[in-house]
């Protein structure tokens, strides 16, 4: 039940992020859009890994080693999302440093001012 809510939330964030990338002229805003879309994607992934009424895949007092398989949520999407978050950070950092350099050359943050190459 709850994971379908979060799935919808994730998809909504993804689409809002894309919408920002499509409509905001400001380069930093576009990257913010990308980052929101990224967060949405991560929420989607975790939602897909959720199992009804189960708990974190860590063996401790709550989950004994014997029946762990019946007790825990899927660990794979968690692992994937960890990777994806770090990769998202890396891409964001590179994008932002491009923007910093572009700004230094052209003194503008509007994507419309960067179309000298075309056709």
């Amino acid at each position, binding site marked *: *039940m*709850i*994971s379908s*809510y*979060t799935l*919808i*939330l994730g998809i*909504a*964030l993804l689409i*809002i*992020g894309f*919408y*920002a990338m499509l*409509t*905001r*002229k*400001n380069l*930093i*805003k576009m*990257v*913010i*859009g990308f*980052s*929101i879309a990224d*967060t949405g994607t*991560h*929420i989607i992934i*975790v*939602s897909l*890994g*959720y*199992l009804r009424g*189960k*708990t*974190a*895949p*860590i063996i401790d007092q709550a989950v004994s080693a014997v029946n762990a398989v019946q007790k*825990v*949520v899927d660990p794979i*999407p*968690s692992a994937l*999302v*960890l990777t994806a*978050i*770090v990769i*998202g*950070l890396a891409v*964001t*950092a590179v994008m*932002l*440093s491009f*923007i*910093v350099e572009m*700004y230094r050359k052209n*003194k*503008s*943050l*509007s994507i*419309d001012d960067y179309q000298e190459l075309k056709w």
Partner: protein
Amino acid sequence: MIPVIIIGLGVIMLAAAIAAVYFKSLLASIISAGVISLLASVIYLILGSPDVAMTEASIGSGLTTVIFLFALHRVRKGKSDD
């Protein structure tokens, strides 16, 4: 109870996302995006992924926001169309 929390969080996050798109100030947008990540980490916790929650909280809402702010600082005087 938990669905209510999730729906509540979700509404705030969507509001923050839309705000981040439409805010005039870049600073406010960046902070809003950070808030989305922060709240996302709560959701991860609810969904049984504490590892992801920690990562999202520290990287998504922490570091990413800092990097955005650094970048913003470097282009402070940039003209903004929206």
